[in-house]
């Protein structure tokens, strides 16, 4: 790919050009020149736009591709298009497919289908067979085949003995476990945050405690067995506190938060719109504030899209009957930036959506430098726009954000 980016503000804390406005010349997928003013050449497309920003390509740690098994909701092809629309050049996909990504064959299936695309796809393998929390998968074999980390998706392993074994084994093969902290016993049918809005709506609530108790338990286990773990997504203020305290003690944990948990609070559930049925559930305004503070001080490392495509049959039904999740790749940056733009710097936001995810997963980070491969996201953090149906590239349309006004937009990616 050949392209000349004019007057792009470079956001890359590792680059000497950080925060500088430069022209960037890309030839055959490689950054050739970064300079104040580069002359336009024949046969090289020029990209000019007011307030153009450029960073390394973004990386999502939590995308649900529905391929294999639920290709009518999303397949790898449509997932890639959604990722590009959202500014991502790398996504780690959950093992909750059918079959589950729980052996070498499924890992290879995903990797082969996604080869040589503008978006790198990094499959996450299951910790236990069929995500049942009972028997360990062949993690080593999957790791060799290209699995980037291991997780049971949004199933939490209940049995503490099983978590112990998974942690010890993961440590032995030097890989990362990603944990979804939720104690389902506290609220077997919980589907929204337990609070005043669940009480008013009669919807079955899941208390913040259900998350916190598992955050706490897994911190203790990780500390005891000396293993690195990553919390997929936390959503409560107490979880942030627990992680902050654990990090201060030097325990090797990292944590993510889902974009929607930064913008939407639990009052939305009173509409009974199933697009607000997500996991972790939408929490209170004070939880949102605590999450933002956690992002600011580095307690929370990563922001996920938690892209969860669902068909109409799974969503345009009674709230109780609906499946959890909303699509998120196309809106993640807009949601994050709208929520955070006055509280975190653009550089900090990029850290959470591009730099830290790769660091945690162990994916080599691209750089913005001459002679390096171009792996870039173009964006405008102050652009005001309204999200519409036409902006959705995913096969599924389950989002509450149609018609929402956002600040900040991903403009495109360069990655070949």
């Amino acid at each position, binding site marked *: 790919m050949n392209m000349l980016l004019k007057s792009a503000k470079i956001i890359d804390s590792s680059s000497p050009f950080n925060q500088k406005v430069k022209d960037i010349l890309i030839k055959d997928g490689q950054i050739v020149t970064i300079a104040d003013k580069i002359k336009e050449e024949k046969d090289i497309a020029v990209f000019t736009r007011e307030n153009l920003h450029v960073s390394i390509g973004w990386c999502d740690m939590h995308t649900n591709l529905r391929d294999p098994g639920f290709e009518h909701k999303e397949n790898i092809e449509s997932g890639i298009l959604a990722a590009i629309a959202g500014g991502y050049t790398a996504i780690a996909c959950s093992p909750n497919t059918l079959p589950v990504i729980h052996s070498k064959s499924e890992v290879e299936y995903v990797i082969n289908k996604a080869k040589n695309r503008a978006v790198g796809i990094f499959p996450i393998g299951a910790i236990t067979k069929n995500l049942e929390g009972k028997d360990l998968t062949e993690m080593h074999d999957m790791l060799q085949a290209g699995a980037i980390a291991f997780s049971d998706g949004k199933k939490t392993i209940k049995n503490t003995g099983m978590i112990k074994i998974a942690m010890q084994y993961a440590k032995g093969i030097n890989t990362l476990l990603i944990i979804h902290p939720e104690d389902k016993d506290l609220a*077997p049918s919980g589907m929204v945050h337990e609070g*005043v809005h669940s*009480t008013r709506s009669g*919807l079955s609530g899941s208390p913040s405690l259900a998350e916190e108790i598992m955050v706490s338990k897994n911190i203790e286990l990780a500390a005891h067995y000396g293993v690195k773990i990553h919390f997929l997504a936390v959503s409560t203020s107490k979880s942030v506190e627990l992680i902050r305290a654990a990090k201060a003690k030097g325990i090797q944990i990292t944590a993510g938060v889902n974009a929607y948990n930064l913008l939407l609070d639990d009052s939305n559930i009173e509409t009974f719109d199933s697009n607000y049925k997500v996991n972790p559930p939408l929490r209170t305004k004070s939880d949102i504030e605590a999450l933002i503070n956690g992002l600011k001080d580095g307690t929370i490392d990563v922001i996920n899209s938690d892209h969860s495509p669902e068909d109409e*049959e799974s969503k345009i*039904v*009674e709230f109780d009957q609906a499946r959890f999740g909303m699509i998120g790749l196309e809106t993640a940056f807009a949601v994050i930036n709208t929520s955070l733009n006055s509280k975190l710097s653009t550089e900090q936001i990029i850290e959470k959506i591009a730099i830290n995810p790769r660091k945690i997963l162990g994916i080599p980070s691209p750089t913005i430098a001459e002679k390096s491969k171009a792996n870039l996201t173009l964006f405008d953090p102050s652009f005001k726009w309204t999200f519409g149906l036409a902006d959705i590239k995913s096969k599924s349309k389950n989002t509450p954000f149609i018609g929402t006004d956002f600040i900040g937009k991903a403009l495109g990616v360069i990655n070949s």
Partner: protein
Amino acid sequence: MAENLSVKHLLGIKHLTLDDIQLIFKTADHFKEVINRPIKKIPSLRDITIVNLFFENSTRTRISFELAERRLSADIINFSASQSSVSKGETLIDTVKNILAMKVDMVVMRHPNPGAAVFLSKHINASIVNAGDGAHEHPTQALLDAYTIREKYGDVKGKKIAIIGDVLHSRVALSNIFCLNKLGAEVTVCGPATLIPQYIQELGVKVNHNLKETLNWCDVAMLLRIQLERQGVNFIPSLREYAMTFGVNLDTLNKIERPITIMHPGPINRGVELSSDAADSKHSLILTQVENGVAIRMAIIYLLAGNITISNFS
């Protein structure tokens, strides 16, 4: 006072204004007089067709609605389906759209999921009356309860109402809290701590786990039906222990310093939340509630049907 409701549907008390509630009461006054005449039927809604859509078992609510509809001369059809048979096949929207395609004007729906009526209202045009949706709301029950209190005491404002029993799983409790709050009553909920929602106080009610204290405080005690098991979990150790700690009998009532009124949405578990001697005593307004249920439902259907006619001709 307004002559029309501010809403097209009756989805919950939450959505009603105080004026709406007063209008429903005033209209029910009229219908209560009508149903006590020798000829109980009026031709008001001869051109209206109503479907009673019950996705959950109900005897008394369904009969009450059906009678209200018949007294108003509406055409009615009844549809009962257990949730399981529907979930295997047709979606809720499809079921209702099929019925509406046969030119039905109004839907009365009982459904096991909270928010089902709100959800349906976003996808169909007909007026909807929520006859109970999961643990969310049961607005007609709350209206008939408040109406009964108003009838007995002249006004609901300032009255002290205790709601006793399984508040956690009760749409009746929730709708009553919304309704009584709007009408200016004071509400206390009482029951075993496992059956009282943790955040209920934020709805403007007090919580007391002591039955005796609660009965001594209140003017009206609304008792709720107790089920031992909910979704496979026992929230109380036994019905026997419940009856011992929260059951109301004539002896308890006689020991209270001042007379109080007992209400129950039915069906009663005699000997559990309420003993027979108390249920059938002078304290009890249970059968008045049932009678008022028909008048209140007539009023609601009549008022909502008024909106239908207006929209059809405008």
